């Protein structure tokens, strides 16, 4: 589904300094058109949520973007951020999902 090249690398010692409790993974999937990145990141900026890493690609017209965001600087919790991003996604005609990073840690690491 998400055919991205390369690896999203966390800054060195990232986990040593910040608890991953505040990290979330935002994924955006949909037909490519102008304004998707701007539309989604505007919501993050509005709530002062920091993008820790971002990867984006277009394969056969399907746009996909994965962001790891840090909510510790922000003024919004994860469920409300999801609500806002999903509704922005609907306006943009893309599918947005927001999951806590613990889900990926549990499922992808032994």
């Amino acid at each position, binding site marked *: *589904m998400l055919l*991205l090249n390369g690896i999203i690398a966390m800054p060195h010692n*990232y986990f040593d300094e910040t608890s991953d409790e505040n990290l979330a993974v935002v994924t955006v*999937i949909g037909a490519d058109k102008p304004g998707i990145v701007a539309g989604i990141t505007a919501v993050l900026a509005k709530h002062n949520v920091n993008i820790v890493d971002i990867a984006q690609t277009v394969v056969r017209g399907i746009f996909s973007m994965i962001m790891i965001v840090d909510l510790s600087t922000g003024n919004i919790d994860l469920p409300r951020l*999801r609500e806002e991003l999903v509704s922005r996604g609907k306006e943009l005609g893309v599918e947005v*999902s927001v*999951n806590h990073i*613990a889900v990926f840690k549990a499922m*992808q690491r*032994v």
Partner: protein
Amino acid sequence: MPKIFAPEEIGEIVEMLLFQDLDIRSVTLGLSIQDCASNNALDFIGCVENKLRGFANSLVKAVEKVSNKYGVKIVTKRIALTPISILLEGFAKKSIEKAVEAGIEFAKTVDKVALSAGIDYVGGYSAFVHKGITPGDFVVLESFPKALAITQTIASMINVASTYTGINVDAINIVSRKIIELANNTPKGIGCARFTVMANAPEDNPFIPGAYHGLGEPEAVVNVAVSGPGVIEAVVRRLGEKADMRTLHDYVKRAAFKITRLGELIGREVAREIGAQFGIVDLSVAPSPKIGDSVAKILEAMGVEVAGAPGSIAALYILVDAVKKGGAMATSSIGGLSGAFIPVSEDWEMNRAAMLGAITIDRLEAMMSVCNTGIDMVAIPGDTPPETIAALILDVMAIAIALDKALGVRIIPVPNSKPGDVVDFGGLLGSAVVMNIPRFSSKRFVERGGLVPPSIKRLDKG
């Protein structure tokens, strides 16, 4: 602590959650109500009501919070109580009628609390009669059809067999008549979906109707059931037809690992929120009537034309074995039924296979030797004689104690139906084709009654 995720790793998980119906089938809170034992029915029921209301509300709140935080769907919230037979014992000694009244009142009250809190099912209208029937057990046997017929959430399980004590055929003969009574008192016999008769029922089973809070359990405990047939089917399909059996097994194992880990994460978090102990993850791959959420489809993705066709038992064996091995690596808190479920109505493709004639009672009986289901959510004609139902149950119980495993029978004698009719039970229960039941009688056999002796395995225990 991981420092990196490849986009492919993130993509894989998101795809599972968004497109392959990966979700938590149930968070089941096991709750002891032994402290509510009383000789006064009002005191007993009042105590259960108060305790249940508090825990039900905090379970619902915790499940919503955790589901929202992680972005993972939790389909049902359930509660499993101490087997009610124990709490009815005192009443039953005085008067069976009074005890039945107390049982029914208990069921009504618990149902009311569950419905108002948003709990989907409450298990524990249960009794253990695998070696004999106490007055409290008798009250449960007597009253479960009514308790289920007048409620929406109450579920009941009667354990009639155990590897270490044998099979209580007298109890089976009672239960089979009661199943018919329950079917006749609920539309399309749907009440039978909340009743199962079991062998070796586990104390920490999160699945309804088998769930109850075992006597070895702590005061309150969170047990989790995961649903991931869609994920495993997708893995098998992506692997293609060239992969050999060992490769197939390995990929299923890896997928099972990931699914189980999600269950463990969510279970631990819900337990922490409630302030209860975390119990177990049931490794079972549980299907739902959604087309992409089917265990039968996994077997078909492996290469059998339709579930039930020759090869299905081997395919199911590979699936269950891989799920157990992957799951065992993923969590140290294994428990419940932990295998694969092949309920007929609750699995869309299983029902299609039954309509095609590939899945029959015989095939289910053969398949249960390699999974943990038994005869589950099978609709049969309403005029099936009770002795035939008893004999079907007895067969499943015999397989269970011979192989030392937990198996159950959840059978629905649909009133006024004939083989080939399709009955829609709605929602997660799905729809079922009424199956053909052998017309040959086993009446003289089951009417012998008494106890089938314990398995030779009993002697392993000393």
